[in-house]
């Protein structure tokens, strides 16, 4: 009789002591989950007058005229998407090359250590410092390159002149440098998690290093590299300061990548400080579109990444 009693006593003790701490942890978890909902709710609530007034036209209209209370973000959506894609085009080959370089042993370990350090430093530099550097270094270089491109390929609409220093192209160059660490880090992870047996098998069949990389290692790491690229795209679309300082913040649509453009994030950065009434609501609406686009892109990226981990776990 005495044994069960003491056991239930100790269980009671076990339960009474820590419960409040568990409750505290539970509350913190609830706060974390609610934060995202709260963010979306507050933005929708503040955007409501603009959503009500403009509806879907907000997405397709090209007029951003605070004085006349007419707002539409089509050029900014286009600018966000195009600048990010151009940045990916530039960053992808570089990022992939570095990821391969870091996961293979072409050069001695110290050299790889240096490259890894460089990439980590690139990730650590604040966006606004990239912007400052971009103004003084990238804009002049990009302008002279663009002038040359216009003189040679000016007939092609996307390379049409006149070339500006503050342009979509300039912003994309700096964006590419900024997202390079994201592409590199995730691609390197998926490259180095390719099972050793696959690589050894390729070598055993007599393939050279690059035949093994191109024929076996890259294909098995491909989903991870795709995920890295998608996540980097999400990053690029939300990037604000450097882009706002370099892209020219124009609401005029242009076919040429050498013309000024604007992004949703840049629009928010430029106008929120001095906005009033309907303009605030419209900016909130633009923020809502930005959050939907980036959440969508990131969810796809995460899903692909999870699929990758699932798959390689099976082989090992």
């Amino acid at each position, binding site marked *: 009789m005495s044994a069960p009693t003491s056991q239930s006593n100790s269980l009671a003790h076990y339960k009474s002591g820590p419960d409040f701490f568990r409750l505290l942890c539970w509350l913190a978890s609830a706060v974390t989950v609610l934060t995202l909902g709260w*963010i979306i709710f507050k933005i929708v609530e503040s955007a409501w007058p603009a959503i009500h007034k403009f509806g879907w036209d907000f997405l397709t209209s090209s007029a951003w005229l605070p004085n006349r209370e007419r707002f539409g973000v089509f050029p900014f959506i286009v600018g966000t998407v195009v600048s990010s894609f151009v940045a990916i085009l530039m960053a992808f080959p570089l990022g992939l*090359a570095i990821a391969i370089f870091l996961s293979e042993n072409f050069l001695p370990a110290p050299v790889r250590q240096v490259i890894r350090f460089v990439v980590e430093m690139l990730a650590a530099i604040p966006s606004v410092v990239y912007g400052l550097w971009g103004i003084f270094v990238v804009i002049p270089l990009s302008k002279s390159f663009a002038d040359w491109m216009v003189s040679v390929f000016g007939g092609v609409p996307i390379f049409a002149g006149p070339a500006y220093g503050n342009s979509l192209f300039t912003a994309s160059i700096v964006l590419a440098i900024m997202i390079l660490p994201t592409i590199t880090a995730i691609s390197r992870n998926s490259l180095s998690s390719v099972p050793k047996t696959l690589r050894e098998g390729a070598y055993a069949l007599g393939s050279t290093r690059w035949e093994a990389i191109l024929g076996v290692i890259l294909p098995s790491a491909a989903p991870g590299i795709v995920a890295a690229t998608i996540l980097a795209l999400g990053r690029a*679309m*939300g990037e604000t300061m450097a882009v706002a300082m370099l892209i020219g913040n124009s609401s005029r649509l242009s076919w040429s990548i050498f013309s000024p453009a604007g992004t949703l994030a840049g629009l928010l950065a430029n106008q929120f400080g001095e906005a009033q009434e309907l303009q605030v609501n419209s900016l909130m609406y633009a923020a809502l579109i930005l959050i939907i686009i980036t959440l969508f892109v990131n969810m796809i*990226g995460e899903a692909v990444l999870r699929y990758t981990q699932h798959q390689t776990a099976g082989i090992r």
Partner: protein
Amino acid sequence: MDNIGTHSLDFFELDHNENTKAMGRSLTNRILTGICVTLSLLTMIPLISIIVLLLKNGLPLLSASIFTELPPAAGMTGGGFGNAIIGTLVMVGLGLAISTPVGILSAIFINEYSQTSRLSRAVRFVAKLLTGIPSIICGVFAFAIVVLPNQTFSAFAGGVALSVLMLPTILLTAEQALMGVQNAYREASYGLGATRFQTIVRVVLPDALPAMMTGIMLAVARAAGETAPLIFTALFSQYWASSLNEPTASLAVLIYNFSTVPFPHQVSMAWTASLVLVAFVTIANVAAQTIFARKN
């Protein structure tokens, strides 16, 4: 040596044609390696350029007084960014004060109390999504919940914006830190008769603390450099702040404001502020990695 090679090639019935094919293969190999190494080394150019310019343009104005004086008015020279440094520290501190308890307690819940419950899975999912939302959205959120009701830009609003930015980093690294604690420790603690609470506080947390600190330092490094969440929450100020409820200067916003004005002195000051900011962020990052390396 050469003889043996030829002989063995003959043995495998490789004719001259196949031999050149093998040489072609090794040439392709070398070219691809060259391309890969060149592209990797190419990334050093922007970093070197940034560092050289930070030093070249930033060092001339670096002095003791720049840390203690107020920013110069438009077109004026002299002055410093003492208020911006204080502002950055205060807002990062506020962000930490909000996000650290929430992040670490959430991590304890999802790793120590219920790893597979619906709430825990929701926490992990939301934390992942929060890492992906643009930092400017944190600013928009703080604008909606603090600036609009208070009718003023404030350091408090900036701190709230930064806390949202820091939360996922702190939470996810804290979860990793807790996962790194060996189960044998927990079992030994239970075996000695400790409660769950005692086990977490006395055994699990002390062991996970260094790795958690790494996450906190990474969050500090990231938040200190962020401009977008502060630009329309804390705004900027030319003066020393006397409360948390007024517009407040920060290094990041100072760099943004001063980089686009036509006054050379202000632009030099933006470079000096960038140098200070990059130094601070680098120190925080190195500290994070040192703590992490010591633990392992």
